[in-house]
């Protein structure tokens, strides 16, 4: 049995999970324009899988279970002049949906901010409680 979670554990761990999510989004966007010589080697969008970490009933934080390759398949493009083209003159562009990634980025930032807000509120309330009776 782990020690009971405080609000700081809950929001802190959630922030690191959201940061992993933001990192995957950044990797996906960075690789959005990359091409590859075969379908297998082409970049596919990375997605973190979140998992609930329950402490006691109703008190739970979140952790990144694993990061999986998800999203759409790499797109085949006919470009015989490309140095990476295979014998048929095809290259594969990274399977990244940039619009979806941008939406994901905004959502991640929002949820990160929410957790920061939770942390701030918990901090002020704890400090106020400490000052009680002084």
């Amino acid at each position, binding site marked *: 049995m782990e020690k009971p*979670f*405080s*609000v700081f554990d*809950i*929001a802190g*761990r*959630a922030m690191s999970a*959201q940061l992993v*999510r933001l990192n995957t989004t950044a990797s996906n966007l960075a690789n959005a324009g990359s091409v590859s010589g075969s379908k297998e080697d082409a970049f596919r969008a990375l997605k973190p*899988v*979140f*998992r*609930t970490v329950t402490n006691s*009933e*109703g*008190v*739970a*934080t*979140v952790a990144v279970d694993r990061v999986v390759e998800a999203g759409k398949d790499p797109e085949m493009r006919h470009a015989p002049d490309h140095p990476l083209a295979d014998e048929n003159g095809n290259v594969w562009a990274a399977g990244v949906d940039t619009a979806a990634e941008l939406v994901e980025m905004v*959502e991640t930032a*929002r*949820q990160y901010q*929410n*957790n920061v*807000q*939770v942390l701030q*509120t*918990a901090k002020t*309330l704890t400090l*106020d*409680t400490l000052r*009680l*009776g002084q």
Partner: protein
Amino acid sequence: MADGNGIFGIHGAALALRSQRLEMLASNIANAATPNYKARDIDFGKALELATNGRTAKDAVDAAIAYRVPVTPSLDGNTVELSTEQTLFAENAVQYRTTLSFLEGRINTLKRALKGE
């Protein structure tokens, strides 16, 4: 303190429950993006009634816990709606502070009585 008959009356129990509810709502906000997570909350009135009738804060919370009914359920089975959770979190924080000032008032009254001012 939890039985509501001490110096602090009902406010001691209320503060403990508010703090537990704060953790629960923080959990909901933390799991806003976790698939299949079901948001939970406590029925505060019920918990307070149990806590003032001699139950410990933890027992009272466990008996008054419930799942939130979402307005629009999402496809991944997550029932956290950030607008709802944020509003309740803010409300709970204000109520926590209110309880704190009630306690502060009690303490000041007692201090004044002790000093004989």
